[in-house]
């Protein structure tokens, strides 16, 4: 707990803000992308934009797993719940994400479907073990952060011999989408705040390509001082032209990541191509269940295919996720699309850029 307050110290933050002001001297300015949704939320929550000089701008990237879940993947959840007598176990964020038809899981629950919010994949397995007569489907959404826990849930279910538990394998991985962003000619970014939670698992190597392409890459925690000091670090890299991956979250992230977590992930999953909302299909950017775990794949168990559906007309989630536009430039923003009546997941997820913009700006 002490840890939290230390990283919110107002005296140190004032000094950091002053340093940022002094050192942000480049005339062309500094454009920094926070890749991770939790960073987006912290930045808004602490009003970090309001204390930065004008020539330092922060834009939000594709860093929330709910936001990048494709419409087809969401629709498949609805298909399974509607057409089968199953209980759906999900993370809270997903409850309000609309399917193509406009309804969400809260609506389905009020119609009598058994939909339960879980805090961890292992809780989901426990639930299934406790109620052997019901069939459970867990929505496995996450990045490298959550994927190991989902993988161990599958392993656990297998060890326990559960046959009433399966997952929707919707995990996605970071390196490919970072590569995609780097190849985007429209994206003019000087540096990245790299997601702390993801890095705990992957270590720092996945960001090397960023540095190689002349972008600052700083692994960052979620407290205001973490973010401010990382912004300063990026400004310094840009000023010196000396780009590298800098681990500014070393109290939590080791340079090599968490081998054990990666190993569990690799035991259960293998890379597969995945469709990212607004970005399209990216080769090897998803995690599919390996053959020997196919009994735990809800898509196979219930014979469902992820449909190819496009996002709602007018929705510019893709451009928001790519950092091309700020959320308020989407024509639906706050009008047809708001937290009470969201069109895209970026407005639903507590970590989504549109929702943060709407709530805090």
């Amino acid at each position, binding site marked *: 707990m002490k840890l939290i307050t230390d990283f919110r110290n107002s005296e140190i*933050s004032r000094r950091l803000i002053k340093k940022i002001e002094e050192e942000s001297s480049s005339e062309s300015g500094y454009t920094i992308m926070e890749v991770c949704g939790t960073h987006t939320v912290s930045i808004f929550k602490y009003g970090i934009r309001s204390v930065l000089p004008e020539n330092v701008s922060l834009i939000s990237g594709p860093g929330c797993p709910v936001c990048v879940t494709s419409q087809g993947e969401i629709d498949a959840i609805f298909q399974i719940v509607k057409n089968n007598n199953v209980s759906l176990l999900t993370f809270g964020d997903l409850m309000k994400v609309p399917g193509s038809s406009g309804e969400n899981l809260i609506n389905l629950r009020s119609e009598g479907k058994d939909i*339960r919010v879980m805090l961890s994949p292992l809780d989901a397995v426990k639930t299934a073990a406790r109620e052997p007569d019901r069939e459970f489907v867990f929505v496995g959404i*996450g990045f490298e952060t*959550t994927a190991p826990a989902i993988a161990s849930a599958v392993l656990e279910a297998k060890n326990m011999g559960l046959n009433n538990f399966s997952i929707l394998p919707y995990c996605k991985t970071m390196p490919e989408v970072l590569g995609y962003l780097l190849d985007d000619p429209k994206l003019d970014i000087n540096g990245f705040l790299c997601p702390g939670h993801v890095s705990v698992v992957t270590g720092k190597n996945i960001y090397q390509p960023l540095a190689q392409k002349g972008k600052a890459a700083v692994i960052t925690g979620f407290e205001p001082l973490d973010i401010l000091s990382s912004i300063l670090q990026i400004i310094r890299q840009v000023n010196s032209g000396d780009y590298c991956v800098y681990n500014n979250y070393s109290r939590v992230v080791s340079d090599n990541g968490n081998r054990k977590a990666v190993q569990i992930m690799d035991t259960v999953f293998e890379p597969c191509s995945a469709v990212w909302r607004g970005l399209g299909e990216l080769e090897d950017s998803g995690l599919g269940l390996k053959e020997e775990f196919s009994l735990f794949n809800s898509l196979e168990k219930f014979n469902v295919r992820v449909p190819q559906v496009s996002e709602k007309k007018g929705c510019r989630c893709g451009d928001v996720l790519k950092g091309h536009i700020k959320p308020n430039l989407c024509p639906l923003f706050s009008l047809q699309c708001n*937290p009470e009546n969201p069109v895209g997941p970026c407005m639903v997820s507590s970590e989504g850029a549109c929702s943060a913009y709407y709530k*805090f700006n």
Partner: protein
Amino acid sequence: MEDKKITSALGSGGKSTNDFVKDIICKYFGNSILENLGDAAYLDINGELSFSTDSFVVEPEFFPGGDIGKLAVYGTCNDLSVSGAKPKFLSFSLIVPEGYKFSDTEKIVASAGAAAEEAGVQIVCGDTKVISASGLKSPLVNTAGIGVLKKKLNDYGKIKTGDKIILTSDIARHGMCIISKREGLNIDSEIESDCADLNPLFEVSGYKGIKFARDATRGGVAAVLNEISDKTGLGFLVDEDEIPMREDVKYLCEFLGFDPLSVANEGAALLIVESALSSKILDKIKSVKVGADAALIGEVCSENKVMLKTPIGGIRNVEMPVGELLPRIC
């Protein structure tokens, strides 16, 4: 006592109903007005009155720091208190699902009785219904209350730029207590609800200098401030560092991705007070138990929005909370 179950007979109006009213209701709520057991209660009150009602649905019905009975009594009393009235009389109506444990029903009634006694109100009428268990796991309670008006504290017109905001307690405890006890989340936490009677705050203050009051229940502090800002065209600047909050509550909010300002309270009110008297009022409020953690958290400003000054000196908006609070993904 053997563990009986509630059956439809209890709501039938016959002997079971009669026994229940005599053995349970009168035992815990006992007072001469109620014991008359007429179709209506005869009350003797002088002065202008305030009247309020609320229904209570909470899952789980027993939680650390309280239960639905206590909540229903304090909830309505607090609505009266923050409107500037001293609560006097309450009605208490219970709707119980068939098959619900008799002993738990009794516990709820007992707890409501104890709360009423502590708050100095009398429960003078009520009703019990039993409904088929489908869909309903635990009882619902409705209370209505009458209080004697001391000073109208619901007049938005009195609020002016420069007035100070007093928050009478630490925040987010009730909401986080309930969420941590929800089935499916299984969070191991000792957070107790702040469920409490707010009247002592007003009694001790003597109402002097208090212009407006509202309890920060569902939607939390964020909802109250936004509502007032909406109605008055004024706004608020609140200092996050001044908002009292317990460390474990803060930690759980962060963990689940909730903004504590939007989380429900059951024993916290916002008072808008005259600037010149604010520290005096604060001192008085801090002298009573429910107000021990009270703090001056900010002031009314002319810009029509609710703004929060963050610990690092940044400024951000505080939005009206929408919908159900849901924990985030990781």
